[in-house]
């Protein structure tokens, strides 16, 4: 890509410099005539909190889908921990350590919160259909107890103890977002992809969510990729930011660098309604 400032990571991610956990090389994605992504290259360092921003329809979700495997790039390759994962199924990528949440809440609405989170443990549970039938003899029970403990830890962390037995579909929006995050965390991912984790939340809920995300990154050691429209939060907690516009990368760097970039300003100013959003959110 032409001249996007490839930043030296800021202090907080300093120790992780030059140790990419994920890399995209010249990724393009087309849907018929629609160019969702055009030759996007970037990398994410291990331990980083990396944000992807851009106007509506810029290709942010498409990029995340290319990482998680929901979409396969039309051109270009993607690498995770140095391995080419372009041809791998989403479930294979998940078991390698890529977890995600969805822009439109995607909880299993008819299941309990606990069951939702247990589904996230799928690739960690050894007990399969056959050994499961021999529950008491195969140590499946021991295994389950260990899982329960870890799951309880996640539940405590995200402060959803009081709803653990509730049916997920009955919860408030903010709580559901938290349960969805818990389910993704249950996978024990090394890289977690959060598609607009704060969309539709009130200020207090947003602050909570920002705190969880920072803790996941700092305490739980997860590398985080976040798509978010709230510039205030993005600039506050990200180590590095990538800006997409019409499917192209137009900037990448520390929050300050990106904010100062004239192309970023034009991208946002170019869309009238978007401008209002950004100003409101920054305010």
């Amino acid at each position: 890509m032409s001249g996007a400032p490839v930043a030296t990571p800021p202090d907080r991610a300093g120790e992780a410099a030059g140790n990419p956990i994920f890399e995209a090389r010249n990724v393009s994605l087309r849907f018929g005539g629609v160019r969702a992504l055009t030759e996007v290259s970037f990398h994410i360092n291990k331990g980083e909190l990396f944000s992807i921003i851009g106007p509506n329809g810029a290709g942010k979700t498409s990029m995340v889908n290319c990482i998680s495997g929901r979409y396969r790039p039309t051109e270009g390759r993607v690498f995770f921990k140095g391995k080419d994962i372009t041809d791998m199924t989403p479930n294979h990528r998940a078991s390698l350590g890529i977890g995600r949440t969805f822009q439109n809440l995607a909880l299993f609405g008819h299941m309990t919160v606990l069951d939702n989170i247990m589904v996230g443990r799928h690739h960690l549970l050894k007990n399969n259909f056959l050994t499961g039938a021999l529950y008491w003899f195969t140590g499946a029970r021991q295994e389950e107890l260990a899982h329960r403990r870890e799951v309880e830890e996640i539940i405590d962390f995200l402060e959803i103890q009081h709803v653990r037995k509730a049916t997920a579909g009955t919860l408030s929006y903010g709580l559901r977002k938290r349960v969805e995050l818990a389910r993704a965390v249950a996978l024990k991912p090394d890289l977690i992809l959060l598609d607009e984790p704060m969309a539709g939340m009130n200020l207090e809920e947003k602050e909570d969510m920002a705190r969880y995300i920072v803790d996941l990154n700092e305490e739980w050691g997860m590398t985080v990729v976040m798509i978010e429209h709230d510039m205030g939060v993005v600039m506050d907690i990200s180590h590095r930011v990538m800006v997409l516009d019409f499917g192209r990368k137009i900037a990448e760097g520390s929050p300050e660098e990106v904010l100062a970039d004239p192309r970023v300003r034009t991208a946002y100013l170019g869309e009238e309604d978007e401008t209002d959003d950004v100003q409101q959110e920054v305010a």
Partner: protein
Amino acid sequence: MNFELLFQLLINGVIVGALYGVVAMSFVLIYKASRIVNFAQGEFLLIGAWTCWWLLTSWQLPFWIGFPITLAFMMAFGILLQVVVLRPMIGEPIISVIMVTIGLSIVFQALMKWIFGVFAKPFPPIFASQTMSIFGLDVQTVYIASLVVSLLIMAGFGWFFKYSKMGLAMRATAFDQQVAQSLGISVRQVFAMSWAISAMVSAVAGVVVGVVNGVSSALSFFGIKVFPAVILGGLDSVVGAVLGGLIVGLLENFAHFIDSQWLNWGNMYEIAPFYVLIIILMIKPYGLFGTKDIERV
């Protein structure tokens, strides 16, 4: 009114209905996981029963060895069927997939007649005593066994979906395949597993009916009885399938009673469930327990 006959028929209805429920559950399992309406469900009973019969008669295996082998075979058969025939159909229109399962049903039906002939063949006796006494009533052991097996399978299903890894994965996949995949669930594996379990469970029902009535192609009628049962219960509800099965079983026998006592039209046994089905669908178009937004096919 002949109360003794009525009582007898109601008991009959529960026993047969529980079996319908079991077959309906295994039908719903496939539908829930992969949205495939399996018109070859009845042939699973047929194949399972003939396999077990063959192992017990031609190979002279005792039941406790022949039966598990039958289950293992049906599991492999279900997986093979899904992988070879139905996996390539993913993404094809629903009607094409339905035509394929109808085709399978016809092929299996013919194949079984070709291999085993057209006449009913009895199972070698499995229980030491033919009847047992319950509350002073003499009841055929096979009927009790049939009911017990049905209940065990139902409890097994409940346990499986609530606590097992694969059961949770199946529920997740039924709800949203993309999301399930993002959580590390192999949707292909879930599809194959749903066919494997469905084939196994249907085979159990097939063996039970075979032990009671002998094995013949009449067994595959269960595949047709399943439709009023699952549509009553809602195509995508496992609990609904069980209740639907029980209702159909009771209805048949009740209709038979009314017919034999007063109407004397004959054949009410066969068609009554379908009449009631139509009436219920007029009142509750999604079945008694079905989800509102599912497709009617």
